[in-house]
């Protein structure tokens, strides 16, 4: 019973918290904060509770739950967790928890903020658990509104512009996804009743069966519509322009969520929907995917290098890092009718791990930027310098997290990048070299940044006097993130053990269709 | 007989078209209402002519009766509104009402 309803409980625990907050008086700020924090902690604990019951050897969906929602359209409230989604669920509740801790820096209209925050968490968790396409779509959009308001109300000076840009990009992507959704729905058939379905599991089966779900032409359309929708979220060049603005304007905790979780939904969507349903199109388009990935890596890195705004730099680094994800999943290789090539599996594994690693490290990087911004109220790299002298602990933690982002061996960023580049080597050597050079570029701009911000002469910029040591709260957040960045880097199998069977199932299933070409 | 029906329909058409043109070109609110009356009357001519010449039968006459009554009701309200407008603007020129634009 508990097992069966656990996913539902996880999704709606934050919602319940939000309703609770709604009923609380808005003057009691501390009470509100602690309630919200409790809710995120509970959610995190609930997600951890998934682990004991999770069968690592099982590739398919676990914790499945299905209830009729709109029966005459065959829309179900259908949840499930497999190896691909489980790590991301954990990441979500984890990052949300620490983002909530980081939210102590928010002072304006705290009640609304916390409510929206919790609603956002519901949406994110829902996306990772939904196994009904319609439900997936609904959850996908659910985070849109809270995010919009979180950026729009609590953001920086250009918050309005950034928020609407984020909103429009995402909505545009959603609309494309909706078209694909309709295409898929009207070409689907329930194996027994022959009615149209939204059930992703059945759709996947159909797509990988003999008949295929869509004909190749339709697959091309559906895939690219879906891909654009998801690529906007990832974000891949050329759909990335919303990201720097959104990040720069968003408050620190929201940046953490944005970078740590939201971007991953794009990659997850590709793996969960676009790939299994349109294998033929994936096969045809793999080169383009890889190219997009590589371009994102390089472009993001160069763009990051050119920034003078600290946060913007981190944002572009996200573009660059998420490029590895696209690259990793795009290195399609097929051995035989039911086996995908090892390098493809490795690529996807790498991409998944990159998502996790980046989730932790980028959240940490944004948090670190936030810490200093809270003190000096600017992010101009050219005015920084010499923070190390004033805030040694902060400098240390920052350096650790930035190294994790850089991909230093032994830290989380390394595993994903290496896996992806290695698999890309099998796919195309030139691209692999280019992608690998991205690593160097990354190292370049991150080290340069570290030098500009932390080293050098003592800080003489604005608000010099405000540079107080880190608070305990900040220390905990930074410390925990750093620790996890290291743990992931040292014990990657902690996550791989969950992912590998599911990814194998995914790729092998797709291989069947591709091999027929 | 058919020629005759056509004749009536043509008269109806003349009235209808006159009414439409009147509605479209006149700026005076009441003149526009006159156009409306013409349009309704054109339709009425059609109905009565059809009533005489086709299987529509008496239905046509009854419809035209209702139309006459409804036109009266509509005219009453329209005039009340037009007078109200006049009270507020001291003119009945529809284009003078330019507070609402777009």
């Amino acid at each position, binding site marked *: 019973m508990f097992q069966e309803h656990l996913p539902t409980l996880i999704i709606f625990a934050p919602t319940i918290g939000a309703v609770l907050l709604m009923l609380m008086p808005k003057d009691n700020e501390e009470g509100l904060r602690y309630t919200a924090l409790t809710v995120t902690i509970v959610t995190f604990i609930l997600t951890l509770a998934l682990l004991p019951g999770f069968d690592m050897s099982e590739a398919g969906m676990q914790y499945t739950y299905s209830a*009729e*929602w709109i*029966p*005459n*359209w065959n829309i179900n409230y259908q949840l499930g967790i497999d190896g691909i989604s489980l790590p991301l669920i954990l990441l979500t509740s984890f990052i949300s928890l620490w983002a909530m801790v980081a939210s102590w820096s928010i002072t304006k209209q705290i009640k*609304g903020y916390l409510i929206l925050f919790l609603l956002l968490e519901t949406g994110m968790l829902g996306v990772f658990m939904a196994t009904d396409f319609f439900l997936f779509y*609904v*959850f996908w*959009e659910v985070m*849109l*509104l809270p995010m919009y*308001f979180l950026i*729009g*109300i609590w953001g920086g000076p250009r918050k*309005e512009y950034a*928020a*609407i840009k984020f909103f429009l990009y995402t*909505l*545009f992507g959603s*609309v494309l996804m*909706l*078209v694909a959704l*309709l295409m898929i*729905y*009207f070409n689907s058939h329930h194996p027994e009743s022959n*009615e149209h379905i939204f059930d992703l599991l059945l759709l996947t089966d159909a797509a990988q069966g003999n008949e295929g779900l869509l004909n190749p032409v339709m697959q091309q359309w559906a895939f690219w519509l879906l891909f654009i929708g998801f690529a906007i979220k990832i974000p891949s060049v050329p759909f990335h322009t919303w990201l720097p603005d959104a990040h720069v304007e968003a408050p620190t905790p929201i940046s953490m969520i944005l970078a740590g979780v939201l971007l991953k939904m794009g990659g997850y969507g590709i793996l969960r929907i676009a790939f299994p349903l349109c294998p033929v199109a994936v096969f045809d388009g793999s080169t383009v995917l890889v190219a997009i990935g590589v371009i994102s890596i390089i472009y993001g890195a160069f763009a990051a290098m050119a920034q003078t705004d600290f946060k913007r730099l981190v944002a572009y680094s996200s573009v660059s890092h998420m490029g590895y994800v696209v690259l990793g999943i795009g290195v399609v290789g097929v051995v035989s009718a039911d086996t995908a090539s090892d390098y493809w599996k490795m690529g996807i594994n790498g991409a998944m791990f990159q998502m996790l690693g980046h989730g932790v490290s980028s959240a940490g990087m944004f948090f670190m930027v936030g810490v200093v911004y809270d003190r000096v109220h600017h992010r101009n790299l050219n005015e920084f310098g010499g923070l190390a002298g004033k805030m040694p602990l902060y400098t240390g933690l920052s350096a650790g997290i930035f190294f994790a982002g850089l991909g230093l061996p032994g830290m989380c960023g390394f595993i994903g990048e290496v896996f992806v580049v290695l698999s890309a080597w099998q796919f195309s050597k030139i691209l692999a070299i280019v992608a690998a050079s991205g690593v160097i570029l990354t190292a370049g701009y991150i080290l340069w940044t570290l030098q500009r911000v932390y080293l050098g002469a003592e800080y003489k910029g604005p608000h010099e006097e405000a540079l107080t040591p880190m608070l305990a709260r900040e220390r905990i957040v930074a410390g925990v993130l750093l620790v996890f960045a290291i743990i992931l880097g040292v014990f990657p199998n902690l996550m791989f053990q969950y992912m590998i069977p599911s990814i194998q199932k995914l790729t092998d299933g797709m291989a069947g269709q591709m091999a027929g070409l | 007989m058919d020629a005759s029906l056509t004749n009536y329909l043509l008269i109806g058409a003349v009235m*209808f078209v006159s009414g*439409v043109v009147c*509605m479209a070109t006149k700026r005076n*609110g009441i003149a*526009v*209402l006159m156009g*409306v009356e013409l*349009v*309704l009357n*054109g*339709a009425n001519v*059609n*109905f009565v*002519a*059809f009533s005489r010449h*086709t299987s*529509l*039968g008496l*239905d*046509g006459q*009854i*419809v035209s009766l*209702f139309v006459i009554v409804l036109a009266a*009701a509509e005219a009453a*309200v*329209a005039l009340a*509104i037009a007078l*109200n*407008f006049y009270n507020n*603007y001291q003119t009945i020129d*529809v284009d003078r*009402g330019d507070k*609402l634009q*777009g």
Partner: protein
Amino acid sequence: MLANSINQLITDLPTQIGSDVTAFLSELVLCGTVVALLLGRLLGIDRKMPGHWIAMAGTLIAFGIAFGNVYANGPDAYQVGEDAQLFSGLLVNDGLTVFFRLFLLVFLVLVIALTVLSGIPDNEDGPDFYTLLIGATIGMMLMASANHLLMLFLAVEMASVPSYVMVGFLKGKRLSSEAALKYVVYGAGAAGVMLYGTSLVAGMLGTGQLHLVAEKLRDLLTSEVGVGTDMSTAAVRTIVLGVMMILVGLAFKLSLVPFHFWCPDAFEGAPAEVGGFLSVASKAAAFALLIRVVHQLTGFGDLAVPLAIGLGVIAVVSSTFGNLAAYFQTNVKRMLAYSTIAHAGYMLTGVVAMLVALEDGNQMLATDCVEGVLFYLSVYLFMNLGAFAIVALIRNRTYSEEIADYRGLKNECPWLCVMMAVCLFSLVGLPPLGGFVAKFFVLAPVWEAASIHWSMGVLVGFALLNTVFSLFYYLKVPVAMFIVDRPEDARPARTGSTEAVFVLLLTAPILLLGMSPLISKLSLAAERVAHDTITVPDGARTSTSPEK
């Protein structure tokens, strides 16, 4: 001999009329309410018992009867085909009628409640206002049940003429009187054109009854006279002309481009309460009528598809134009007016797809289309009325309906602002709000119809693009409310808790229809209705339970 048979008829009449009257009881109760309102004033009761109580009581009784009818007799309360005809074929009492009767009565209750809260008709004008309101509603209910070309015109007039007055209800205000004048001028013209079209159709086919129209049309086009479905044939041309004129009248009621001029002006000048009423009720009734009329045109054969494409173009242009124009508005009511134009366009796509599907013989798809439109209207009721209600309530505090004056309201009346955001985002069509599900239900069948005719896919494309675009202007209000700070010199706008509760009541269904199992309840009901509506002409009711 003849006299005897007439006597016979006279004695038969009561029994026959009796059953008709039972089915018509809700409308009659509303008529009685109108009389009661006037008597109340005459006898001076309105001092002790304000008009809105009488109106509310009457509406609730009417709703009780309508609902009880459905509830007591189960889902088969209404009949289908010939049996459903009332008053010797002037009206039909089928599922569509029942649906819209309940729809309009619920809506009327909400509107009356809103007017009580916002106090736009003061006690003195109350009876007048509610008389007009109920009178217009009766007309709209007749529109939904009209089965005769005369009733079509009569119902449209009954719905329109009181609306003209309601738009000009603030008679001392220049804007209001101007709005009323523009509305009446355009409205009367459109009604006239529609009547002329009616006369051509009725005359050509020799009948006024809608189901006979369809029958005779089919006879005519397939008859040995050799009329065919060729536009070169005069008879066909005449009918097409007539049908187009009828559609012009309906398009006017639906404020579709290019017959939309009145809409922004009327809505801006009218009190927000009236705007809310007109934007939902008259649109719903017009859609009911449109579905009926279009449904009769399936005999058109080859002409149906061009007609559908024509309507489709109108739908696209309406939604695009509405959204574009709305962007430039500074007045909330005016913006919402343009938004109603756009939404009419969205819903019209459903009707267009229905026509295409019917022409293809795919009744199941046509059912889905109608279902989508019905569902959309149901959600639209709450989201649009909610938006207008909030505009009205805020106007009562700030005396302004400019978006600029909504700046920073979130601190003053957080509930209203949140609910306004819910309504507006639902209008955009964002999950998990009802607007999304509604849009999905309309657009999904249209998309499926693309396999019949490619143009339907274009319709969906435009609708989706418009959805993205509509975000720009809908967002202006939440942006003003939440993101911008309140100017120093702004009026205080604190609202009471009654208002908040009422607004909550209005917006709760939007949320429920977006994510609760209620969706399935409503969509099943809508599907039933749609199923019966669509399959009627084939005679017998195929099955009592909808199959899918």
